[in-house]
């Protein structure tokens, strides 16, 4: 019975999407495909953000609400390095590495001392996000910054129906997919990845079997934070970033992991695809209500599958 209802709802949702496509594509195919592409690239950024967030949560039960601040800080640091050296790749690397180091330090200096107290850890990350946001505002002011990627990739490629589309955005999507594949390889095929997966399932058992869990934790936090920085600096080449960006980005990551399922990297991929596409279409077709659509998506997932699409039972 319940299953039948669920299928009914899924069929209805798919039918609504198809009806929308049938209604809109003949009217303005360019806008539709353009939104689809925008959604895909937005999903790429969200995946970079949310995969780290979800990994850290899955393993350490640490809801890192400073994840958005790390995104923004990574972007700023990447910008500074790029500005000094004029080498874009160095800026990108700096964004990733600086945040990875910050994450490592945080895990070693703060979070390992409050292991298991998930509420307290979350509050610490909230405090960190306030402090970091204010320091960034202090140092960089309220101006918007942007990185200029090399000319080679900041052109546009011809795409049928739309005309042209930013090469940089497509590369961004490719990077996100590459990171996803690498992450999958790392988790599924390496020894450390195996430990991380074991830790997500049962931390106590992992420790009991002689693994240095603190090392695994620190490494995971470094990767998660680094990915946030990478997302920041990469997106900083596409659109300007300014104070306050951290909040919007954090909301995106939260929605993605709530929809996709906490602790699941595949869930993060599914969630980012869903949220990214919904948000892009919302912005294109109903700009003043766009947030409502993503929110409805979250509420619908929570109503039917509280643990998220691919989340394990809480």
């Amino acid at each position, binding site marked *: 019975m319940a299953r039948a209802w669920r299928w009914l709802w899924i069929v209805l949702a798919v039918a609504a999407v198809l009806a929308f496509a049938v209604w809109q594509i003949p009217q303005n195919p360019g806008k539709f495909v353009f939104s689809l592409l925008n959604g895909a690239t937005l999903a790429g950024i969200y995946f970079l953000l949310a995969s780290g967030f979800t990994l850290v949560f899955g393993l350490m039960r640490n809801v890192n609400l400073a994840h958005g601040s790390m995104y923004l800080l990574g972007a700023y640091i990447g910008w500074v390095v790029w500005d000094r050296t004029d080498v874009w790749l160095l800026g990108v690397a700096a964004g990733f590495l600086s945040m990875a180091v910050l994450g490592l330090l945080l895990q070693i200096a703060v979070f390992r001392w409050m292991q298991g107290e998930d509420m307290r850890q979350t509050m610490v990350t909230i405090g960190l996000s306030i402090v970091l946001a204010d320091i960034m505002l202090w140092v960089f002011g309220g101006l918007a910054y942007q990185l200029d990627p090399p000319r080679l990739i900041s052109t546009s490629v011809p795409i049928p129906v739309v005309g042209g589309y930013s090469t940089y955005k497509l590369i961004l999507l490719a990077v996100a997919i590459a990171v996803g594949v690498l992450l999958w390889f790392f988790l599924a095929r390496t020894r450390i990845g195996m430990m991380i997966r074991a830790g997500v399932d049962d931390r106590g058992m992992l420790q009991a079997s002689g693994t240095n869990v603190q090392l695994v934790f620190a490494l995971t936090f470094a990767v998660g934070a680094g990915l946030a920085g990478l997302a920041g600096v990469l997106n900083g080449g596409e659109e300007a970033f300014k104070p306050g960006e951290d*909040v919007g980005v954090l*909301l995106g990551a939260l929605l993605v992991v*709530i929809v996709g399922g*906490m602790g699941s990297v595949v869930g993060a991929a599914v969630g980012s695809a869903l949220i990214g596409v919904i948000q892009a279409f919302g912005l294109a077709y109903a700009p003043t209500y766009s947030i409502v659509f993503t929110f409805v998506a979250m509420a619908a997932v929570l109503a039917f599958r509280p643990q998220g699409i691919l989340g394990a039972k809480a």
Partner: protein
Amino acid sequence: MSDGRRAGSLAPARTAWSRPAALKWPAPPAAPPRLGTPGAMAPARRLPEWLAAIRVRHLVVLAALIAYPFVVPPFFTFQIGGQTLTLGLIALSLTFLAGYGGIVSLAQMTVAGIAGYVYAMLGSSGTPLSSGWPWWVAALLAIPAATLAATLIGWLSVRTEGIYTIMITLAVGMAFYFLVHQNYSIFNGFTGFQAVRAPEAFGVHWRDPLPFYFLALACAFGGYLLVKYIARAPFGIALQGTRDNPRRMAALGFNVKAHRIAAYALAGLLAAVGGLLLVWYNALVSPGSVDTKALINVLIIAVLGGFAHPIGPFIGAAIFVLLQNFAIDLIDRDRFNLVIGGMFLLIVLFSPDGLLGWWTRLRRRFETADARSDPRGGR
């Protein structure tokens, strides 16, 4: 082993290597300590229990609060006193949820903001979108509307537990912020509603310092008493049961989710009244009233004071408001967030149960010292 986490209580999961829980939630309030021995307290005519619970210190604090506006300049009455009581009331709703229900919701300011928005949309303000209805109609609709919204938020977030709640309520709050920010046809976008008129009733302009202070004091006092009462009422006791061990409560036949949703609704009522006061105090409601900073400020206030007692949020609010007004004299004008964020970090890192916990620890130290010197062995 995973039970502690599964239990959904916000009490941290006690895993094998975890240190003892530091973020403690209050134990169910014990019976009020009696003065002297029970024998001395049994006079011929018995005082009702609620009267007997009143201590001298309660009366002193109340008298001081009533006398306060008559001895300080209007700035302190309105900007410090009124704001402290208003923010304290909103934070009290979080203290109630977190302290007695084990639910940390970040959407309490959103509920308050909904009350403010509904009042501004229906009442009269400087924005043409307002309907211009009488203040009491707007107020009477704003409070149920916000309470209903709080109930819906609760209904949505009780599907998940513990640490998930904080994320979902944060997402709800942020989504509401982006909605009012983006939308111009209903919420007037970035500007929001300016020059919202506070009521002028019974010949009193309620935004004047003295009336506003006493209005806020009355509401805050009412909220405080309500929380104190609920904490000992059957509903409150059951709610504390769901906080400490939801599975056992479910096994005993209690509907855990229904209790939690009811807690959201009640907290929503407190936040709605606070939100109404806040919109009268600020005379405006805009996306800035419900942005992430505002949501988190409520958490900061509640955590600063401590979740252990309903007086906590008011102490936290007093510190917050004083810092907000005077920290700019000590340091750079724009670095308030750094100060408050740093202070929040210090509290969370070193005294997770807030200033109240600090105070309790101090008192316990003295009490044990007393007990040692007292031949009768204390109370």
